[in-house]
């Protein structure tokens, strides 16, 4: 059996995930001529919010990790720092005039709006994952069982 390099497998998987997205976005852009205005601001806001919140969520998982490692404080400190750096960067960039501000009047309102939008994005992706996983498992379980034949035995 051919063993592919893990990076090659990852690249192929990335192509499978990204190619249809790029095709549909290109098609819509080509035929409807969307301006794409505000995309960069949304991208950066989503990136900063996601980095900060994911850091805090991963910080929580360290408590589980700590069960097997005599509760070390160094990784907790590292992830706390990461989360606070993310929050600091978010506040810093939001404070730079109109750079990352959308339809909100203050830095706090924009930061809170980013968090709610991130939550909505996660719900959308979560429900999408549920639909795909549900369809896949329904199909896998409804077919006959695959039997693996071992030649040696």
């Amino acid at each position, binding site marked *: 059996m051919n063993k592919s390099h893990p990076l090659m497998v990852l690249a192929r998987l990335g192509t499978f995930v990204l190619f249809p997205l790029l095709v549909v976005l290109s098609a819509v852009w080509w035929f409807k001529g969307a301006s794409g205005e505000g995309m960069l601001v*949304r*991208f950066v806001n989503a990136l900063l919010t*996601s980095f900060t919140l994911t850091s805090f969520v991963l910080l929580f998982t360290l408590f589980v990790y700590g069960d097997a490692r005599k509760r070390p404080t160094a990784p907790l400190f590292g992830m706390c720092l990461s989360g606070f750096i993310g929050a600091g960067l978010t506040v810093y960039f939001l404070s730079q005039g109109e750079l990352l501000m959308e339809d909100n009047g203050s830095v706090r309102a924009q930061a809170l709006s980013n968090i709610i939008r991130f939550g909505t994005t996660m719900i959308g992706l979560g429900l999408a994952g549920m639909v795909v996983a549900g369809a896949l498992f329904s199909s896998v379980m409804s077919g006959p069982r695959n039997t693996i034949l071992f030649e040696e035995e």
Partner: protein
Amino acid sequence: MEEATQAFVFFWLAGLFLLFGFMLSFFSKVHWQRRAGLFLFGTGLLSLMATPWTLPFSPSSAFGHLLGSLIGPSVLLGVGFYQITFSGNVPVGKLGPGERKIGFVMVVGGVLWLQGMHWWHLTPTYPDEVNRYWFIFWPTMLLGVLAISSGAYGVLAMVGAQRQKEQRLMGGVAFFALYSILVGAFFDGPNVHSERFVSQVFLAAADVFGALVGALFAVLVFALVLVVYERQQPDPDRLEPPNAEQLTQASRMIAQQMEGGDEDE
């Protein structure tokens, strides 16, 4: 109570309860902690969904309204897929064929309900216009279904043996999502104009890519923190190699096992 305090208690604290409760029930191995996590999750979710009544003055209550609007189709899809999956070829806890049909009807109902929110008069409206978070949710979900089902198609093609049927299904799901996006971009719904939908698809794509890149960076930092910590740990004590007596005892036990010796050992 002051408006800001009300918003903190009924929205942000509830959101923290939801997240903390989910993680506690998911990660904890202690029974009472998992139950407490589920309780926190349920309390947080209910409080968020009640925000149209508890925080009618706050724009954030639109998020709670969206959550409430999505409960119906989510339950139909979740329970429907559960019924179909567990009425299939499962070794234990198999459901009857009747439940399979009910599950199928529930899944179709859930999909039609979601599509009806775009193409019919079921669009979440709050307070008197289309809920602004619906414009973020629907394109995100369609893009998510397209990306995840295409990824699943790729995984099945790379590692799945005799999984052509599942591959075709994943291709079909991806095509359905792609078709829904294209139709939404070219035709107006009763409440959502196609131009608005197109701009929201691009903004949703920016949100999804931004969220993925941000999460990836956080995971990389997490891995780096753990690698640095683990490298600083002293090596574990090494055991002495076995002496002749221990080797003799081990070989005697192995020989006994090979010859069908006592099961006690």
